[in-house]
């Protein structure tokens, strides 16, 4: 299968602190790749690099063979036209109706007639189960509906790539499962290459073709779901079995720490 994204020796820092430590991996075209890991492992930072919102300290990020690391903003904007992103909070514009939110990228980036755009908007909203909500404002929607509307907007330009940042965050299990089904549908019908950042195990097992697990800014696992389940890496096992971290301090160390010794 063809490579759609190739990350090579990626290193990044926030100030002096190294966040991603020499990361390399590949995303295959038409597959759903899940970037998994606990809070603070660097997975959202990695996603921001993949969509060109952050620049690495060193390394390459090849999207369709074009290195976006260090790419000029005008060139990056062209690459982004083929990317749809669903941010954690859906990032809808609250002053606009859903129809205008979905139409926005079409009005900004294409020369399509308004009549064509209106049909496309209704198609995109129907795709995510929001037919009839064109004239609603984001504030009138539930959390799950906002995510769906955000996805309709992410799909507006028929992207080759879809990126999801914690799609299930803040959703009840039933709504989250509905969103997972939608992600599967987009992969199967539109052959979109999908990258999902999550720490939700039920989502992982429903949508992933390929899994990359990060821990402390390093890849500790890359492979299929079956390979993940039989991995003997202790951090992978802790994550899958929902085991808590070991106590950071002994009671004596804790006492010394709070007593200021």
């Amino acid at each position, binding site marked *: 299968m063809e490579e759609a994204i190739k990350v090579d020796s990626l290193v990044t820092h926030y100030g002096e602190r190294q966040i991603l430590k020499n990361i390399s991996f590949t995303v295959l075209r038409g597959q759903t790749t899940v970037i998994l890991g606990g809070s603070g492992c660097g997975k959202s930072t990695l996603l921001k690099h993949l969509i060109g919102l952050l620049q690495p300290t060193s390394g390459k990020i090849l999207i369709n063979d074009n290195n976006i690391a260090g790419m000029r903003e005008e060139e990056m904007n062209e690459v982004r036209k083929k990317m749809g992103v669903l941010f954690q909070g859906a990032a809808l514009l609250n002053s606009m109706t859903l129809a205008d939110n979905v139409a926005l990228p*079409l009005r900004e*980036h*294409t*020369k*399509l*007639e308004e*009549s*064509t*755009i209106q*049909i*496309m908007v209704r*198609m*995109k909203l*129907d795709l995510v189960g929001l037919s009839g909500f064109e004239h609603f404002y984001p504030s009138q929607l539930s959390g799950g509906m906002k995510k769906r509307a955000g996805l309709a907007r992410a799909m507006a*330009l*028929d992207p080759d790539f879809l990126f999801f940042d914690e799609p299930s965050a803040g959703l009840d299990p039933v709504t989250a499962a509905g969103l997972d089904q939608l992600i599967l549908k987009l992969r199967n*019908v539109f052959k979109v290459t999908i990258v999902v950042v999550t720490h939700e195990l039920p989502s992982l097992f429903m949508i992933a073709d390929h899994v990359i697990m990060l821990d402390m800014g390093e890849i500790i696992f890359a492979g299929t779901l079956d390979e993940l389940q039989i991995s003997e890496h202790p951090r992978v096992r802790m994550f899958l079995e929902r085991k808590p971290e070991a106590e950071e301090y002994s009671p004596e160390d804790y006492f010394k720490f709070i007593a200021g010794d």
Partner: protein
Amino acid sequence: MTIILIEKYGKKILELSGEIDMNASPVLRKELMTLVKKGVTPLVIDFNNVSYIDSSGIATFVEGLKGMMAFGGKLKLAALPSAVKEIFSFSKLDRVFEIYGSIDDAINS
């Protein structure tokens, strides 16, 4: 994308080739809606050499069909490659559009 209008057995056929994407759709819309406004019916669309269609292309044909239906005209889609047909099927539009396996089938229907 290229668009050629031909006539066969007295029927107008719009031959399309290449990708019907967001760059091509405005051009296609102009051609299609000109024929619709002239009341050309039936109008057969030859998809044989279409390699890809995106949602802007689908929306363009929806608009074309809507225009045709307004005066009782017929828009017939013919020789759709399987990947193109899949997109129409997914959106259930294969039940709305008249879709034929070949140009001859569309002309003789």
